[in-house]
Every structure is written in structure tokens, then in C-alpha cells.
């Protein structure tokens, strides 16, 4: 994918899928690379089950925008997440979905991220890292190494390896 001046990326799912943590890690990876980056979030008050959205804007120029208005990339991990925000994806934008859980009404790429997470790490909750890996492989928005460094900084102690593993599973899937 060609690097545009500003990349607007939105991650959408439901509470409990780790969408916001994935957004923070992607943002941290961009910061590690010296890029300007902004991350905001929007979620319902329920800790599980409500919609959950993480916005990441990455740019080589100063960033004035605060939320994603025209997403270059939308990652949807749940139907509710997709339905609540599909309008914000640009016509020529990339839609990435969990193919088991989201039935989109437009062109898409993706993989069964939740299933891949379960099969490879035994933990469905690493779905966020699998999806992040896929996103990074498909877009090249940041380097794989930067994300792995960011994961080690941000995930709870003792869970670094399982999260990096999940990220690599998604990354490999994205290279296919």
C-alpha cells in the first residue's frame, strides 16, 4: 500500500476484544518510528459487549484532526463494530474483517482472526494481536519490529510472548 500523507485507521469491535489496546500498540509503534501519531477512543460504558472503537491517525506532518472521519483502513472484529462505523470508511479504503464474525456488504480482505487466535495461542482474547499483525502485513503502515517492541512495552507482564506470538500469526496470515 502506498503511504499517503496521513493514514487514518479505525479499529472497531465490541468491548472485551482488546480493540483499544491494539490501537494503543499501533500508535506506540508509530511513535517508536518517530512518526506523528494520535490515538483516541470511543466506547460504551459496558466493559464487555458494547461497541468499542479505537482511532489511530499516523502522519509525517503535524496532526490536527482528532478522530477518524475518512478511514483509509477499517478493521472490524464484530458485526456491531462494523455496522456502527462502516460509513466512515473511504470508498477506496481497505476493509479488514474477522471472516467468521462479520458479514460485510462491500469488498473486504481478512481471516478468521478469533479462530486463529484460539488455535495458535489457546486464547481467543489475543484476537486483537492477530488482527493487528494482519493489518501491519497488509498495509506496511509501521514496521513489524516496532510493533513487537510496542507490544512488549504495553501488554501486562508475563503475557508478552503470547501476544507477540499472536501478532506473528496474524502477520504471516497477512503475507499470504
Amino acid at each position, binding site marked *: 500500500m502506498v503511504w499517503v500523507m496521513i493514514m487514518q485507521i479505525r479499529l472497531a469491535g465490541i468491548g472485551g476484544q482488546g480493540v483499544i489496546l491494539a490501537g*494503543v500498540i499501533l*500508535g*506506540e509503534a*508509530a*511513535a517508536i518510528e*518517530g*512518526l*506523528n*501519531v*494520535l*490515538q*483516541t*477512543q470511543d466506547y460504551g460504558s459496558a466493559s464487555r459487549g458494547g461497541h468499542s472503537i479505537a482511532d489511530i491517525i499516523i502522519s509525517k506532518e503535524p*496532526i*490536527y*484532526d*482528532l478522530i477518524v*472521519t475518512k478511514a483509509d483502513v477499517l478493521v472490524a472484529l464484530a458485526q456491531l463494530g462494523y455496522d456502527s462505523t462502516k460509513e466512515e470508511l473511504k470508498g477506496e479504503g481497505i476493509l479488514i474483517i474477522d471472516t467468521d464474525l462479520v458479514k460485510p456488504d462491500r469488498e473486504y480482505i481478512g481471516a478468521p482472526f478469533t479462530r486463529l487466535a484460539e488455535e495458535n495461542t489457546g486464547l481467543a482474547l489475543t484476537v486483537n494481536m492477530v488482527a493487528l499483525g494482519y493489518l501491519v502485513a497488509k498495509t506496511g503502515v509501521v514496521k513489524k519490529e516496532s510493533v513487537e517492541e510496542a507490544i512488549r512495552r504495553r501488554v501486562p507482564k508475563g503475557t508478552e510472548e503470547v501476544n507477540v506470538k499472536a501478532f506473528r500469526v496474524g502477520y504471516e496470515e497477512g503475507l499470504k
Partner: protein
Amino acid sequence: MKYPFPVGRSDFIQGDEAIARAAILAGCRFYAGYPITPASEIFEAMALYMPLVDGVSIQMEDELASMAAIIGASWAGAKAMTATSGPGFSLMQENLGYAIMTETPVVVVDVQRGGPSTGQPTLGAQGDVMQSIWGTHGDHSLIVLTPATVQEAFDMTIRAFNLAEKYRTPVVLLTDAEIAHMRERVYTPNPEDIELVYRKLPANKEEAQYPFGNIHGDMIPPMPIFGKGYRTYVTGLTHDEKGRPKTVDAEVHERLIRRIIDKLEKNKEDIIAYETFDLDDAEIAIISYGIVARSAIRAVKRLREEGIKAGLLKLNTIWPFDFEMIEGIAEQVNRIYVPEMNLGQVYHLVKEGANGKAEVELIPKIGGEIHTPMDIIERVKRGV
């Protein structure tokens, strides 16, 4: 000294976290607070960091007590801070006045949310502008700073402490829920590269007798520290140079209050900070501050692309206010727009400054959403 967070490099952090880190780097070693959305993360960070830098972070019973505690800590020699949001800021007003009257250097962070009352706890707003300046009673002045980015929240926190110490005054850092919770890349300098200011102390026993006297001719009296050998009387009552209550003497009252105001007014050039974008040849000026300034910059760029000569004045200090500078801009441009997340607050200051030399129009927005660049662009185009 080892800091409990990375220094000398960039990090990816929320506005609230940036404020806490900057406060510690500015030398803050006393934090008192009461949790409130969207300021709680400042408290959480302080609770985590303070014990690791030999500082104190304490939860008080409410915001009245939080404000009282930081005033006490400041008189005991510590750089002190509290943070809150609208409802708590209302409760702090009485003691904020006490800090002004007793010339106590403290930093108060107000992370604005929608109000009045408990309003919209999780959403950003700019409704506390007038409260931050005039919320406490009586004639007075203080300093109010307005960051627009997480980096500015960091930088202005350090500046807030430096100004508080330099001018012996409370400083309000007026931020909002958006900046509080968004993450951006923030550069944290090495501590040795950060310029820090410390309050003037009495040089000797003679000077210590006048903790409220203009003994150096700069309107800023040296501030004795409790327990360091001097008897000092501190009161919110009108007091003379020695701190003794003189509550019915008009001359004493006028001298005290005028000095408290003048020490900031006469140093406006040092205190007031602002930035301009494309303002030099502008025919239309947008005057903005805080989070909305980001959309305003975007709006100016797009208006310029369309051949409309717009420019921006971004206010980083909103009090003291430079009315003369606004009049200068009003003489140059045809029209001034003031977008703010309220129903008109800085607008009135700008209107007073413009002094009829240009039309001043408010672009208000309330409810929690920030102005989009289009909100500003469309309004400007309607007037062209």
C-alpha cells in the same frame, strides 16, 4: 535522580499522564486531589509516581480540602498541584481566592467537561473559561494557560509551575476531556535540560518581615517557608506588608489588591504566550485556543487553498489577556471569528479587545463534539 517514567525520549501517552509527568519534572512533590472524570488519570499517575520520587500524593475528602492542602504544602516549601474537572473546580473557587490573596504559588489543573453541574462527564468542553478567570470573588488576577495538544499539556504544565513560582500566584492549566484522554507522541526532555524556576525566599530576617511587601520594587515579595525560622502571618483578610489584618483601611486594601493584579498585568509580555499562522497578511482572523485551535489551523489552511486570506491567532495564555494585541489585529482584518466549545466566553474578551475596529463573530458548539474544520470554514465563507 531516577524518574519512574522514560526521560530524554519520546513516549506515546495520554494528556493526563503527560501533565503528571511534567509536574514531577517541574519539581512538584505534593499532590492532593479527589478523583473525577476526566481528570482521574492525573491522580492515578501521581499516586503511582510520587512515592518513587519522595513526594506525597494524598486523596482528600473533597475538592475544597484538596485546594487547601496544596496551599498549605506550598507554604511548607513544596511545589504543589491539584487536578479536577468542572464540578470540583467550582468547589475549589473559595480557596483559589485564598491562594490569590495569600500569593501562594500553586498549580490547579481543570480538565473541562460539559457542564453546568455534573453535565457530561466524559465529553470535552470549554465552558469553564470565565470561571477559571473570575470564578472566585473579589478583584483579582491569576494566570490561565490553554494547551491544544498532549505535548503542549506537558510543556505548559512545566511552564505553569515556573510562572507560579516566579510571580507567587496560582496558575490554572485549563485543558479538557479530549486532550486528557487522547494519546500522542510526547517528547520528554532530559531533566537537566528543563529550565526550572523557584520562588524568591527572604534573604535575611529583615526581608522576612515583609512577606507581602513590594520590597524589591518588582511587586513580588519573597516568600518565607514555614518552619524555617521566621514568624509569618498568612491570612485571607486584607493585610499589610507584614501580613497583619487591616480590614477597614481602604489604602491598605487598594495597595495590596493593585499589587496582586499589577504584578501580572505589568509582566504581561513575559506571561502571555501565543502563536500565529498565516496572520501577517490575513483579511480574516480566527482566534482560538485549546483543543479547538487544532481544527482552526486546519480550517485556515483549507481557506488559504481556496484563496481566502484567513489567518489564525492561537492563544496559549487566556489570562492575563492582551486586549491591545486584539485591537491591532482588528485594525488589520475585516472580520474576526472565535470558535469555542461554549456559547461565548473568550468571544467577549475578543470583542472588547477589537474595540469596534472589526466585526467579531462567535462560532459556538456545545454538547461534547469538537468543531470540525468544516464547521469553521462554512461559517467563514458565509461572511465572505
